[in-house]
């Protein structure tokens, strides 16, 4: 179901691009199409909404169907099981993103060239940096989902929890972007704002740490602290994997 959903989303993006070309709207280039896979209109992480049920059902089924006990009986260690599942989740998440980018990128080249006369308005290395940061954030997101499923250890609870987590972080990031915009304009205009710089730093840190915040920033092509996004993603992966392993080692597998 995840692949058809991703293909449907890709089709929506491609059709929208062709529609904009046919309507003669404001021209844009390929980087807008490619990063839309991480966040539609800069707010809606469609890929996360597709990934959350996929990964939570896939991981949660092992918890509910007791296949983990079989793996342990066969001689695998808990660490090996956890890390292999984590890698599988990351690979799946990245594969869906790459699928979107390849298809949408290829199918939107003709309308983009006819609209703008050029494929990219930013240097290619910039696009690579954005894409790399977003894909690493996606891997961090998969790691967070793996931790959530390990803690909840129940397919239904994990599925509902994963979706609610996506929706919650989506609205949190939306609030953060609104606050950042308000604070930046106010500080630039010299309007006194109580604890303005501190609040701005807090909201900026929040959207830089959260995987959802990272790839929504990339989808908006607005990453003032691009250098630290991969560092935070790696930190999230290490911390959530460590916590998940700790929980899993002590979990009583019935």
């Amino acid at each position, binding site marked *: 179901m995840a692949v058809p959903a991703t293909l449907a989303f890709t089709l929506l993006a491609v059709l929208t691009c062709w529609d904009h070309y046919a309507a003669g*709207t*404001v*021209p844009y280039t390929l980087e807008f199409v490619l990063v839309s896979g991480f966040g539609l209109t800069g707010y809606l992480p469609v890929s996360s909404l597709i990934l959350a049920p996929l990964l939570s059902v896939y991981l949660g089924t092992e918890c509910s169907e007791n296949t983990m006990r079989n793996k342990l009986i066969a001689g695998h260690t808990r660490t090996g099981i956890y890390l292999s599942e984590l890698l599988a989740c990351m690979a799946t998440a990245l594969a869906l993103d790459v699928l979107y980018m390849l298809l949408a990128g290829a199918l939107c080249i003709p309308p983009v060239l006819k609209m703008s006369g050029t494929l990219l308005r930013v240097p290619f290395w910039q696009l690579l940096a954005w894409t790399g940061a977003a894909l690493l954030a996606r891997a961090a997101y998969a790691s967070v989902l793996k931790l959530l499923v390990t803690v909840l250890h129940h397919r*239904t609870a994990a*599925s*509902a929890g994963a*979706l609610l987590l996506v929706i919650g972080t989506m609205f949190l990031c939306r609030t953060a972007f609104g606050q950042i915009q308000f604070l930046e304009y106010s500080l630039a205009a010299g309007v006194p704002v109580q604890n303005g710089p501190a609040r701005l730093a807090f909201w900026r840190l929040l959207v830089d740490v959260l995987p959802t915040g990272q790839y929504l920033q990339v989808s908006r092509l607005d990453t003032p602290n691009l250098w630290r996004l991969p560092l935070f993603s790696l930190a999230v992966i290490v911390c959530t994997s460590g916590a998940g392993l700790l929980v899993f080692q002590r979990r009583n597998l019935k």
Partner: protein
Amino acid sequence: MRNVFSANLYRLRKTRAFYIALTVMAGYAVFISGLCWYKHWSGEAMLFGMEEPLLFAFCTGGTVPFTAFILAPLLSVYLGTEFSCGTLRSKLSVGRTRAEIYIANLLTCIFAAVLLVVLYLAVVLTALPAVGEFHISVRQVLLLAGTGLLAFAAYASVVNMLSALLGSKTNTALVTLLLLVLTMFMTVYIADRLEMPEFVNAYDDAGQILEEVVPNRYYLQPKARAVCEFVLDLLPTAQCIRISRLDVPYFSRMPLLSVLVTVCTSGIGLGCFQKKNLK
């Protein structure tokens, strides 16, 4: 059916998800009430009336149907447990009909939805001294709240139907949550399209705005506009969003459409449930 309904209520009291839902709803209400008191104590001018925090029971800030996000997993888990634990077969074995079971489940879901809303309203009313007044009449607030409750009844009916069709806790929870997100964004998109002006400024090839005014291709023509308005009044989630925005141009038809949705989805759900093979 009274016995089945009583048994359902007893099981609801024993469901952990129910207490999690109540706790989250209470926490949400305390948060909203706290925000009102914070504004009052910080001396900020109250630009809103008491109706706004009260109507947040149905949708937060005119965008997020928060209560529906709590209801979806609660009802999915509650209803799905009957399928996975075999309690449905037990109920049929003791002589209950499928129609009795279905309708009792529906009434239980509506009860849970109403209870969550009432809990929220009771907690947020403590912020009345802080906010001070209503900007619309209390009668209008009561009418809006009543319409919102009917919308939740329709929503509970939709979840009950999906549960009967899907028969699995996990699938029902996933489908109801994803449908909720889809209808939420669809409602916001349609509402934005309805507000678009008929004419806009043209752009040149470089993307610069010109003084020339052209028809807005995204402006909805009368027929499309009427259809969109009808869709917004039909969908329970969209009704909640409109109520919280105090944007209810066709007030009389919302309750009727909620009843229609409840009847139709119950009919479909009951029909499928009658034919479902219960393992």
